[in-house]
């Protein structure tokens, strides 16, 4: 099943002489249980693509569909609900709230969606356990290592059981050991929990764990490579 589908996606910033075309008619898809990496030089439009797919920004032209739902037809509240319930985000700078514990950070999307705090915490606890950081659940972000913070960020992205994970340069702030662990973890998410991942990165070490690599340049897809990682 197609989790993500874009058609002729275009995003233009500015106007007149200052006009910049960040995305230029991009069409792609991500299937259920597929791990796709988008690579390309800085400014090629890969982060903009991620923002469009995540409903964080609206395209100038073209269509984005998540699980068949056209994002263009949704208002701000609908998009927010979609992000909270169907999409998990992982950011480069982790973006954890410094005053909340790892557990509370993880539970945040559930709580924002109206789940009772106790239920939200139980669910968050489960994910922290799965990601092997349950022993740090009462710690605040400044008391965690970079790798641990990223695991908490992953737990937060999975806590609402989304079908799609979007990750924007998630290893930008990690050392090579943590990057390796993180890449393995993402692979696990796809293989064990059947989530789809769309990841934007520069890092070939992490893209090698993806099923498919999309190369971009000047806002356009230039090449697609299949890593043939799936069994059978």
């Amino acid at each position: 099943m197609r989790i993500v589908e874009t058609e002729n996606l275009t995003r233009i910033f500015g106007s007149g002489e200052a006009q910049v075309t960040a995305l230029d008619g991009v069409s792609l898809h991500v299937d259920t249980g597929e791990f796709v990496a988008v690579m390309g030089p800085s400014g090629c439009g890969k982060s903009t693509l991620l923002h469009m797919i995540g409903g964080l920004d609206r395209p100038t032209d073209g269509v984005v569909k998540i699980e068949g739902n056209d994002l263009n037809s949704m208002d701000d509240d609908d998009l927010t609900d979609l992000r909270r319930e169907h999409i998990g985000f992982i950011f480069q700078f982790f973006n954890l709230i410094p005053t909340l514990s790892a557990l509370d950070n993880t539970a945040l999307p559930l709580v924002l969606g109206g789940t009772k705090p106790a239920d939200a915490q139980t669910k968050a606890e489960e994910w922290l356990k799965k990601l092997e950081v349950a022993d740090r659940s009462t710690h605040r972000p400044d008391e965690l290592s970079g790798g641990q913070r990223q695991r908490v960020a992953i737990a937060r992205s999975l806590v609402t059981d989304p079908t799609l994970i979007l990750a924007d340069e998630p290893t930008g702030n990690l050392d090579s050991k943590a990057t390796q662990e993180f890449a393995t973890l993402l692979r696990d998410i796809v293989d064990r929990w059947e989530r789809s991942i769309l990841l934007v990165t520069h890092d070939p070490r992490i893209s090698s764990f993806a099923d498919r690599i999309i190369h971009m340049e000047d806002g356009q897809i230039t090449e697609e490579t299949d890593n043939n990682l799936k069994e059978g």
Partner: protein
Amino acid sequence: MRELPLAWSYIKGRPIRTTMTILSIVIGVMMMFGLNGLAPAFQDMFVSSTQSMALSNVDLYVTRRDGGFFRQEYQGNVGSIAGVEATASLIARTVAAPPDHYTTADGRPINTIQVYGVDSANTDESFNIVTAAGRRLAAGRLLQPGDGQVVLISELFAEGLGVSVGETVRLPGAGGWMNFEVVGLLADPGIMLGSQQVFMPLQAAQDLLNTPNRVNTIMGRFTEGADAVAIESAMEAMFGHGYEYSPLEGGSDIWAALMEFASVIFTMFGLLALAMAGMIMFNTFRTSVVERKRDIGMLRAVGAKRKTVIRAILAEGLILAGMGTVVGMLLGVGFGYGAKATLSAVFENLMGRPLGDPRFTVSTFLVTIAFGLGIPLLSVLVPARSASTITPLEAMRPATVGQEAALKRSRLIVGFICLVLGLAGLLSGIFPLMALGSILFLLALGLLGPMLIGPVTKTFSRILNLVFGQEGGIAAGNIARQPRRAAITASSLMIGLAILIGLGGMLASTYGGALRFLDASFRSDYIMMPSLVVTNDTVGAGPDLAETVKRIRGVKELTTIRQIDISDADGLGIRLVGIDPLNYARISGLSFLEGDESAYAGMQSGNSVIVNGRFASQYGTIIGDTITLDGDHGPVNVEVTAIGLDYINMKLPTIFVEQTTLTREYGVRNDVFLMVNHESGADMEQLEEDLQAATQNYPGFGIISREQLWESQKQLTDGATVGANIMLSLLAAPALIGLANALGINVIERTREIGMLRAVGAKRRQIRRMVIAESLLLCLMGIALGVVAGIMLSFVMTGVLEFAGMRIPYEFPGMGVLTAVAAGLICGILAALIPARRASDLQIVAALAYE
């Protein structure tokens, strides 16, 4: 300064924050400048007996410090001092004109008349004040020896009256209206339009004012080469402390003290507002430094020295402070004129004199500029220093909003010491210590505030969670991560609310108490008086009025009151009130704090007096003490037999003496109050009409019933409350700005966090609620601390009144607390409106990319 362009670029880049910060300074400066500009106008209004007497050849003016009269024969004593060549006597006295009686030709009111009684037999030109100070004769003639009831007036006055030379004018005096023949017109330079000068022979002035053989100024000219210091010493030996010997400053002791007090209060209001502005600046700049950590690190990396960084931040503070001070002073001028327009009518009613235009003296300018620039700059100093410690490495790290470091131990220790000393001071019962105690108490709350943030947040966040759900929890977390900033933000609100409750409590106690006290101590059915505010300038009524009233059908009994303001050895004003003890006791009476009514009988002998609470507190007087009065015939020793209060004089140190003693020793012959009781069954309408008719000949005298007096005092207290509330709301404004500023900064600082919250599923509404919850939480802290501090302050302030002799039972400022809570919550919501909107409108992608 090379740093100015950089500073300016930051200021330009943040227009909203800049405006808010400047606005906070503007309010403080405006209040300080505007109110202090009014102070000279107040002073002008009160100090009036000394104008237009510039005589170049006069070396000496002998006046009583209090402006009162003394025996004319002292002129001979002054003349006998070695080195004094010539002397002259003079009366210079301002008389309140009956309302709406005199106007200029174009209808502008003349409210006061400066009566000059000149010794026309004295032909020494040195003492000719009639044509001094630019005055010249325009028509008729000058005064001559042997003149009787004649007068010189200005052309302007004559025009308004419609009289010319040879015609008659009526002037108000102690014996009622008196007619004077106009012998000359003066081309007056028109110093004060609302106050006209009239010149008459000394004897005529004494008749008009009912002060036979008494004057209030002796002028002297020295022989050439005379030893002025020796002459002054001889004067001191002759007259004692109650007199002054050179400058013409008499008559203003009590008002000068009041003005000084008012000026301190005005400055305090401005300072409080500026202190809040300082806190806002401190908060803004501290945050701004954190926010610019990477910029500053980059500057350091590319070669900026530490002092360059400090200078750049200070330059920014200076620009903001400069802009705020200039705008504040400009608005202050408007504020001064606005306040004048509002207050003038009140004062004209109360004092019979208009309030002049605000005047901005050099010292007002200097003080305002010093505080307007100084306080903000001092506030910026700490953030500037901390900015200079940022290393070039910071430029390489991502900017995040972290947890504040733990509070320093030293701060806690100092805070606790301030708290203990503050409480000790507050409970000491000694006024200066109580004042110091209240400052230390507020300081302690400021220092220890951050410590309270945790528990207070915890308490209130539970309540907020009920209303705001998880947004309340996130808001509480945001506050808890920066307790110091939260404490400073809450502190500015705390100070505003504490003052609101403190003053509110004091006003409630004072006014409530005063009105109850009025009920208790003012028992006569009618009071006849020129004004409730009676000073040495008030021309009372001679004994004829009382005699006339006594004969009116329906009048059962009456008692009269005379008074004079004198000064003690330190120049502090004391009021002597002459009563007819037994009649007074029956018709009106004092409220006794110590001793009892038997004291009245003792006063009949003239050897004993009653003092009021204010006097007893100021001089530590107890029953049995002896007071020495500096009378006309030498010192008079009187014994204090009771301490009691009356309504009119409760704010001034007062001695109640037997009336004939006052007449004998101070020459006071005029009644300033007549208290009248009617017979039961009297025809009230007729009685009031007759009483009114009796005052016809006594300009300025009016009649008021006990009920009317109560009502008028009620209106006065209500008016004062409104005035105080306006002032207080101005103080609340910086708190509101500070809060909005802090919230605005919080939003900017947490832009990326807000972006993340939106990305992971927070709706715009939820973000708005989070910011509002944060604001309300800060307000609740400010309210909690402000209510505690305010109740304490109101207790102290009411205690201070007791210290000042106004023993008033403390009234819990229930309304003040409710108002403060409501004002605080409204502040919280108003302050959050813009930041909340800003936060919810953030574009997620831009917010996530924010650095």
